[in-house]
């Protein structure tokens, strides 16, 4: 490696890695981003097993509960993050910019945002200058449906287990996320109210898994999906008509000319968020580049880019400055598009007049019911999940 080439190895999932982002970053800062693309599970494992194989990590907040104890990642210094104070209060305070509190079940980002010290392994309940992850993207997930095949309004999570959709439903086969979707169903159908869906007791886990197992045995599920394409294919091919989904996957199905709705539900969304941190092996100039990169990322261009994909970015003000008013209105404010809405690569996503599923940023993020989580009873939950699969 020649000393003057500024290279950062960026480990993350393909979802957040964009070719345009790395090109723009190189142009703006001279930092060359080398993407290391892996699946969500592999990213986490690599952090544990090969902390030396990456510099910058892009991962989800809920996995911090596992990553921080490994001591393999580096808490960033909030003072060196220029826009830190402008980061949306969703992360820092657990409320919308308008001050409305949002759901805090599960591993909500603000619970794990700060560490007690630079090398501490415990999270701080109050803000400190040691930040675990600088937020990049986040979103509120719900069920995707095929309105053309269902032909009636869907408004509750209970529909996921509705026998009407026997053999045509699907959930995500990541135990900690799948069980949350299940919990949404259980709660919606009034069978149980959880104190914290993201941190169940053993009894709650048993109950939830029992309901799921019955549904599975009854043939409710066509398949469980694990990666983006599986979810797209299931939906697009009509194998399923209702399933838990990611926003870009819905967009993808729609772009194939197939009707698909990311259906807002009355019980609210299950939300997730991811962000940047740095491997503990990074030091010296490399660490400076890492800060430089993070600062660039928050400076607006990248935020706008992410917003245009249907995600939400961390610093709203800088992102807004990089988007047209029409774009901002469509993506963030729930307004009908004035002109055609284009994807970052220029292809037309929505025609003029369309509105975004779920409405504005405030509506969506305000309706978050819980966050992706790692439970205290995680071990027990995984065992039960295996049991569920074996049933």
């Amino acid at each position, binding site marked *: 490696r020649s000393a003057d080439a500024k290279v950062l190895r960026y480990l993350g999932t393909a979802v957040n890695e964009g070719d345009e982002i790395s090109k723009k970053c190189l142009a703006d800062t001279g930092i060359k981003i080398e993407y290391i693309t892996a699946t969500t*599970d592999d990213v*986490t*494992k690599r952090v*544990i097993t090969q902390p030396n194989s990456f510099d910058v990590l892009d991962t989800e907040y809920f996995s911090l*509960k*596992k990553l921080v*104890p*490994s001591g393999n990642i580096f808490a960033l210094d909030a003072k060196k993050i220029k826009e830190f104070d402008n980061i949306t209060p969703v992360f820092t305070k657990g409320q919308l910019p308008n001050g409305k509190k949002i759901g805090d079940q599960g591993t909500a980002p603000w619970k794990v945002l700060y560490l007690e010290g630079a090398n501490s392994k415990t999270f701080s309940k109050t803000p400190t200058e040691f930040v675990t992850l600088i937020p990049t993207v986040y979103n509120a997930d719900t069920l995707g449906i095929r309105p053309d095949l269902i032909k009636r309004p869907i408004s509750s999570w209970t529909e996921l287990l509705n026998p009407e959709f026997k*053999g045509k439903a*699907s959930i995500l*086969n*990541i*135990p*900690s996320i799948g069980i949350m979707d299940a919990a949404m169903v259980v709660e919606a159908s009034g069978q149980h109210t959880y104190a914290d869906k993201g941190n169940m007791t053993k009894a709650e886990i048993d109950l939830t898994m029992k309901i799921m197992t019955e549904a*599975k045995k009854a043939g409710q*599920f*066509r*398949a*469980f*999906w*694990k990666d983006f*394409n*599986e979810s797209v*294919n299931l939906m697009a*091919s*009509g*194998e399923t008509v209702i399933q838990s989904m990611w926003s870009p996957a819905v967009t993808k199905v729609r772009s194939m000319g197939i009707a698909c709705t990311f259906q807002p539900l009355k019980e609210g969304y299950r939300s997730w968020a991811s962000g940047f941190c740095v491997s503990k092996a990074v030091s010296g100039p490399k660490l400076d580049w890492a800060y430089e990169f993070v600062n660039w990322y928050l400076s607006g261009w990248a935020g706008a880019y992410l917003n245009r994909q249907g995600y939400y970015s961390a610093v709203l003000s800088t992102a807004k400055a990089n988007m047209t008013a029409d774009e901002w209105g469509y993506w963030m404010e729930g307004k009908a598009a004035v002109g055609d809405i284009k994807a970052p690569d220029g292809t037309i996503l929505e025609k003029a007049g369309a509105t975004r599923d779920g409405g504005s940023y405030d509506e969506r993020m305000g309706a978050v019911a819980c966050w992706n989580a*790692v*439970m*205290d*009873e*995680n*071990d027990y939950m*995984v*065992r039960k*999940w*295996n*049991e569920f*699969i*074996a*049933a």
Partner: protein
Amino acid sequence: MTQERKTFVAWLQAAPMMLVFALFFLLPLLFVTIVSAWDYNEYEMIPAFSLRGYSDTFEGCIADLPNLCTILKTYLKTLKLCLLTWVLTLLIGFTVAYFLAFHVRSKTWQIVLTLLCTIPFWTSNVIRMIAWIPLLGRNGLVNRGLEGAGLIHQPLEWLLFSEFSVVLALVHLFTFFMVVPIFNSMIRIDRRLIEAAYDAGATGWQTLVNIIIPLAKPGIVIGSIFVITIVMGDFVTIGVMGGQQIASAGKIIEARLNALQFPAAAANAVILLGITILIISALTRVVDIRKEL
């Protein structure tokens, strides 16, 4: 050459492979075994001796009687898939190898046909796996074809995300692992032995059973080892083709691992290793492939 020198040379010849295994398998295996006997909590492993990884695995095995506990159910399912796949790959693989070895008479054509069978494997499995859905799905080519032909009126649901599709994909992937060793055993069979058998009045079938199968046994055993070991540990194919709804020994480990519960995953791996080694040594007891060298 004296016996000792021969042994020494043999030892030298085996040493490089031994070294690779020592560095990249035995040592890691040692770590894994050690880790399997560590304690762990929800977030991290704790370097203290504990058999929790093992005991948790067998949770409920006694309590649930007469119902089967998760691990037994999972292993039964895995063994069932393994057995089905083994029988099918063996039948298909043997027939293909037989054709290549005894009916394709020139070496060149044998090589060409072998390559023809290899080419699909050069397109990454990740890609090939995706391609099953447009083929077997509810609205896939097969169902459409059958419907078009008027054979069915409702799409066949069990074509995809079922044990059928799992076994189909496994057979698809691993039959070639049978073909290669069986073929190699078969081309060593002296043609005159087959002539002698025909001459003794043996029918084609009798020759197959009495001469070719016994002489190809080492190849059959080796191919079986390949297929059985891979299927026992598989989680990718079973996962994707089973719609993530079918349990297997490999999937248990994967789920544990993805939850970063390394000790539990390691313990499960050690158990799987033990069980599979048992199956394999039973197999090599039937035919000692090393004696046939």
